[in-house]
């Protein structure tokens, strides 16, 4: 018997499966064109003014990078111009630093007072590096030691999207649901506040937004049947100031007399209960795991809200408010001012959590205060941000799940042919579940007037299945297999003109782009790829000017800062992972196309291109 057993194990020799076949791209004829489904309330009027953030939202660049979005306008524009298209070819690594964690690194390095701060993926270690000394030695390390069990509740790798320095504290979140403020001088915690309960599936991966003495934090767990929320904490003590839920009665959502939504569909009492089957709102998702933007100019807080749960939409008939949309709130009280739902009764996992970029932009013959949001559902939304009125909505990626946005009602026009169904595989739905673009933020240059959108070109097959709610386990109910979009290139960097509502140039990438972009006054856009190239392209033409191969794929947020020597530096984290890169940072077997919520079907070749890693790279010109 033993001989038989040993022979069996010998013949079943271990094979490291590097990849499966990538499915064929969805044909071009299956998606709508921009002309077919793009809409605006008025024709472009570029002569009415120059598009730029206000100085209140984007003060003059001090050369630091104190928050992931660079400024409250979230432009990620660096006014530094030492690096230019003429000299970027000589850009070279200045120093690197191992993060010691080989999981997806999504954070932006932070630079304040000549110190750089980096937070890693779980276990969320914070490093402070002294930029005034050669090689940037460590000043301190802060290890928060989050609960290991939280790793089993993170839908899409154990990522962290960064921290913020404010008033001498580095403030960040941990996967197990804490917000922590660390004294930048001592490296010791000033306060730690526990917000999430992992036994209910609540984790935190987002970067907190800090403004006027308050820290804004939202939860993750839209795939775990959480009831999503956003909180405000006192910046000095960590004490809870208010909490607004994304579902449930108006009182819990902080909807009161100040609430003036623009569209009829969002007006009514307790829609956070009424737009769900009985009790379903209690486990209905709506996590705020992406970007929360503070607007000092209008004294408003914009909160992106994630997908409803479960993914099987037949278990939750109704509009499922207030998921897959955006709240404008009073920053002091949390009271909702307006709300807009990008994807009512979402059937495709189109979270509404992507970045909000605050600009003054010409529209209909006059300058308007707009919020630009580039949604998972495939549209660039330009929203008048006093009222929440959609001015225009145009597709920037492959779209056939909807046929445009009705600008009279504000409602997404769902394509019935691509609605998801129980027990039936609906094929070639575009965009895919992770969206035409996921969380990774765009940048905007006031010099070029263009948005630099790092995004995906992917579609999917979807079959819904019945799912039971079991606290602390996934609440999904869908078998998904992703595939490339038209053309076969899975990623794209698009330079988008929000005034003319059209792309100016685009760079095709083999893999979906999962890093953010940063644009500089030298007219260069920096971004990274999943296969580990850090690239510089001309902001006016998209021409590739420089590239450098790092140790692992890039899914983080590059930054540009002025060093102690007054020279311009570019910093980025490598470390493949996240939803798209989990097939590498795993453990995931590429033979299962349904793995990682169907992402592996379209990413099974990535292990041939990169391995797990995690390193800070800093670049500069020779000087």
């Amino acid at each position: 018997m033993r001989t038989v057993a040993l022979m069996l194990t010998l013949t079943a020799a271990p094979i490291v499966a590097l990849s499966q076949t990538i499915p064929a791209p969805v044909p071009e004829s299956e998606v709508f064109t921009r002309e077919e489904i793009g809409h605006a309330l008025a024709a472009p009027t570029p002569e009415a003014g120059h598009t730029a953030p206000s100085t209140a939202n984007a003060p003059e660049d001090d050369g630091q990078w104190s928050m992931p979005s660079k400024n409250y306008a979230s432009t990620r524009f660096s006014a530094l111009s030492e690096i230019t298209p003429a000299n970027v070819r000589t850009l070279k690594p200045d120093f690197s630093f191992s993060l010691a964690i080989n999981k997806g690194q999504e954070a932006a390095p932070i630079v304040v007072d000549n110190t750089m701060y980096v937070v890693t993926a779980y276990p969320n270690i914070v490093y402070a590096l002294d930029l005034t000394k050669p090689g940037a030695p460590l000043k301190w390390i802060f290890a928060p030691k989050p609960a290991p069990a939280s790793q089993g509740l993170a839908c899409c790798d154990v990522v962290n999207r960064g921290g913020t320095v404010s008033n001498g504290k580095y403030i960040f979140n941990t996967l197990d649901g804490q917000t922590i403020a660390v004294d930048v001088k001592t490296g010791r915690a000033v306060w730690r506040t526990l917000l999430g309960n992992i036994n209910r599936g609540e984790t935190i991966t987002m970067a907190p937004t800090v403004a006027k003495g308050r820290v804004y934090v939202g939860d993750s767990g839209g795939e775990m049947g959480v009831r999503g929320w956003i909180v405000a904490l006192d910046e000095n003590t960590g004490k809870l100031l208010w909490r607004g839920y994304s579902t449930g009665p108006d009182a819990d959502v902080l909807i009161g007399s100040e609430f003036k939504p623009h569209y009829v569909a969002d007006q009514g009492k307790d829609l956070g209960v009424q737009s769900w089957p009985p009790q379903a709102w209690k486990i209905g998702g709506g996590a705020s795991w992406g970007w929360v933007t503070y607007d000092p100019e209008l004294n408003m807080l914009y909160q992106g809200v994630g997908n409803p749960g479960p993914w099987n939409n037949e278990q939750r008939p109704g509009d499922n408010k207030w998921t897959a949309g955006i709240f404008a709130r009073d920053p002091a009280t949390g009271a909702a001012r307006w709300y807009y739902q990008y994807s009512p009764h979402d059937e495709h996992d189109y979270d509404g959590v992507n970045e909000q970029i605050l600009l003054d932009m010409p529209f209909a013959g006059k300058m308007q205060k707009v919020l630009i949001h580039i949604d998972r559902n495939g549209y660039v939304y330009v929203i008048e941000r006093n009222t929440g009125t959609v001015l225009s909505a145009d597709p920037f990626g492959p779209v056939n799940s909807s046929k445009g946005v009705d600008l009279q009602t504000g409602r997404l026009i769902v394509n019935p042919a691509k609605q998801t169904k129980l027990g039936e595989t609906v094929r070639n739905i575009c965009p895919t579940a992770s969206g035409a673009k996921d969380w990774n933020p765009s940048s905007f240059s006031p010099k070029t007037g263009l948005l630099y959108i790092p995004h995906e070109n992917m579609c999917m097959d979807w079959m819904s299945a019945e799912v039971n709610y079991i606290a602390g386990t996934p609440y999904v109910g869908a078998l998904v297999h992703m595939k490339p979009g038209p053309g076969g290139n899975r990623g794209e960097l698009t330079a988008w003109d929000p005034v003319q509502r059209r792309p100016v140039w685009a760079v095709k990438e083999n893999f979906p782009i999962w890093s953010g972009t940063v644009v500089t006054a030298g007219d260069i856009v920096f971004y990274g790829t999943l296969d580990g190239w850090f690239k510089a392209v001309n902001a006016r033409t998209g021409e590739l000017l420089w590239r450098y191969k790092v140790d692992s794929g890039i899914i983080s947020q590059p930054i540009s800062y002025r060093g102690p020597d007054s020279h311009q530096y570019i910093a980025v984290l490598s470390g493949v992972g996240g939803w798209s890169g989990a097939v590498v940072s795993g453990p995931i077997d590429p033979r299962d196309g349904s793995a990682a919520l169907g992402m592996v079907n379209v990413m099974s070749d990535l292990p041939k291109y990169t391995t797990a890693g995690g390193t800070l790279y800093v670049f500069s010109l020779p000087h």
Partner: protein
Amino acid sequence: MYSRSPISVVVLFALLLAGCNRGAQPALPADQPGRSVVIDSALDPGVEHSLVTTDPRATAYYNNADAVNSGKRLFQQYNCSGCHSNGGGGMGPDLMDDVWIYGSRLEQIHQTLVEGRPNGMPSWGNKVPDQQLWQLAVYVRSMSLPQTLAAQTDNTPSQTPAPVPPEADQDAGWSPPQATTNDYTTTTPGVD
């Protein structure tokens, strides 16, 4: 001895193992009647017998097609697939390869289901009927069987899970790494 074929190494090693089994062994604590069964996950390299104890409850689930198919259904119903997909993993590790963090024997998989594991695996003991946990364990064990892998026809594996033969768990203790080029571990002075 350098010309010895791999097959003869295997046979010799198997004979050595058999010899050990025949020898007088002190009963492991868990073998004593009336004690609740404890299964070791940590396997000690360098010993020529398995320290893994057996659980008589596992016996009924070998060569049991009904059990493995019930496990397949339960794997969806209890949201195991939410983390482990159809064996390829996601939030949790993949289960269809030959890497077993907490042991590959049915008893060990069952134990993992009952107790949970520290990096995110929930504990299901007393929450799910024990028979169902065994059915889940045998489905998980089946995912990486050559027969199950061979039956995969599209990009969704583990849809035709093969029953688990008892032989699959016969050698759960330390065994020599496979495909080594040189192996001196069985060279005993005076024997060869």
